[in-house]
């Protein structure tokens, strides 16, 4: 069974969002990394770029497949996880921890509340 953390919000595209004061951390879920298999490359946006909700902000590549990363809410990138870019296996090993992808500042913090709850995400992946 894939792990779903209670203190996070989720998207239908299998990203998670952690609200930490004024900033938010974004990554892919345990379910997503497990479906992809060993991740070998990671493409992330540059710091400072503005992202529009639902647009792609990068991609994760495993041997077998590639998966686009979708922006959960309108935001600006303030940090990217360069360690994970150099060692993408971190995403497999620790999708909710060291394998985070980007740190952003949301244009409207209220958008966070519209994301999926852990319960909604759980029913989504069990469909």
């Amino acid at each position, binding site marked *: 069974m894939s792990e779903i953390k209670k203190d996070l919000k989720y998207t239908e595209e299998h990203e998670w969002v952690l609200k930490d004061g004024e900033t938010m951390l974004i990554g892919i879920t345990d379910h997503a990394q497990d*479906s992809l*298999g060993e991740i070998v*490359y990671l493409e992330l946006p540059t710091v400072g770029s503005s992202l529009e909700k639902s647009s*792609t902000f990068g991609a994760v*590549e495993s*041997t*077998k497949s590639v998966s*686009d990363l979708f922006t959960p809410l309108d935001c600006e990138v303030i940090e990217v996880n360069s360690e994970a870019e150099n060692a993408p296996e971190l995403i497999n090993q620790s999708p909710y921890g060291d394998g985070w992808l980007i740190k952003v500042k949301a244009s409207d913090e209220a958008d966070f509340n519209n994301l999926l709850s852990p319960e909604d995400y759980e029913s989504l992946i069990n469909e």
Partner: protein
Amino acid sequence: MKTTPLYETHKINGAKFTNFNGWDMPLWFSSLENEHLHVRKDSGIFDVSHMGEIEIEGKDSLAFLEKTFTNKVSGLKNGYAKYGFFCNNDGYVIDDVIVYNLDGYRFFLCVNAGNIDSVEKWLLHNTNDFDVKVKNLSNFYGQVAIQGPNSIKYLSTLYPNSNLNDMPKYTIKILEDLDNTLTANLKSPCPNGNNFLIARTGYTGEDGFELFVPNEILSTVYEHILTNCANIIPCGLGSRDTLRIEMGFPLHGNELIEGTTPSDYNLDRFIDIDREEFIGKDAIINKIEKNEFSFIGFKMIDNSIARSGYEIYQDEKLIGNVTSGTFSPLLKKGIGMALVDSNFSSNKNLQIKIRKNFKDAKMVNYPFI
């Protein structure tokens, strides 16, 4: 979705499944990379029961294959096999198959899962002038492939009565050991006799064997192998694909697509062009003269993976598409094959469009390892 008789066993072994041509097949068990590397240095077992088996039998079976198959079958000794193509009149590949000569009278074909019906139909359509029977045995046979440098060691110990050590590559024979122990239990015997076949063939580039086993006893055979050969690990279709790409082997549907002929993929050695006539020959000769495409191997310079369908550019001009691409678990780099305009320049880098960006790749010879 269709499942093989090993489906429940795969579930217990922790398989992650994928839909392949309507079959629910294992993509990997623990890890695609581990399975890949284990096959390269030791051995693994693949469930390839989705593949089809067709037998051509009758007085004219050899003449029939001479008319329909691109490679030369006459002169092929009993028990030996040849790889080649069934092409239509346009030279387009209906399927790439291995033809095993069982006894000069019966020929056993291993065909791709997605093409079983079209091959059967096409063969039947061409039987008019020949005294042959085309028997589709795909529902009767399951198939497992044991691949890797150590597979001979394990299987010759497991099947001592079959003298596998003396078996040359690209041959087929009856697996005596299974016949002796399991024939009595078969509820529905093989339409062509209780012959469980073993071939020294495969799709990984390593030494190995393919076992054609009645579905009814496939899980008994599979579990017997896994229980008695601790170093043979279950492998999924994921590593089967990366292993074949590292060797530069074509996959029908990725390579060998409509609008092309086998000669477009450097596969001329499997086309017996000296033969007076076979279906598709004229179209293939025209295509060779036209020399439209080059089939090349490439290795990514940038850290990226080019996959099937991606566009390839040179000097900002679109010159072709990737046919198969992956991350090579052995080289730890993106590799692939591509069909490009024959006027391309082999000493200049290629630019492959990966999502929104162009990534550099260089042409290399395959096999890649």
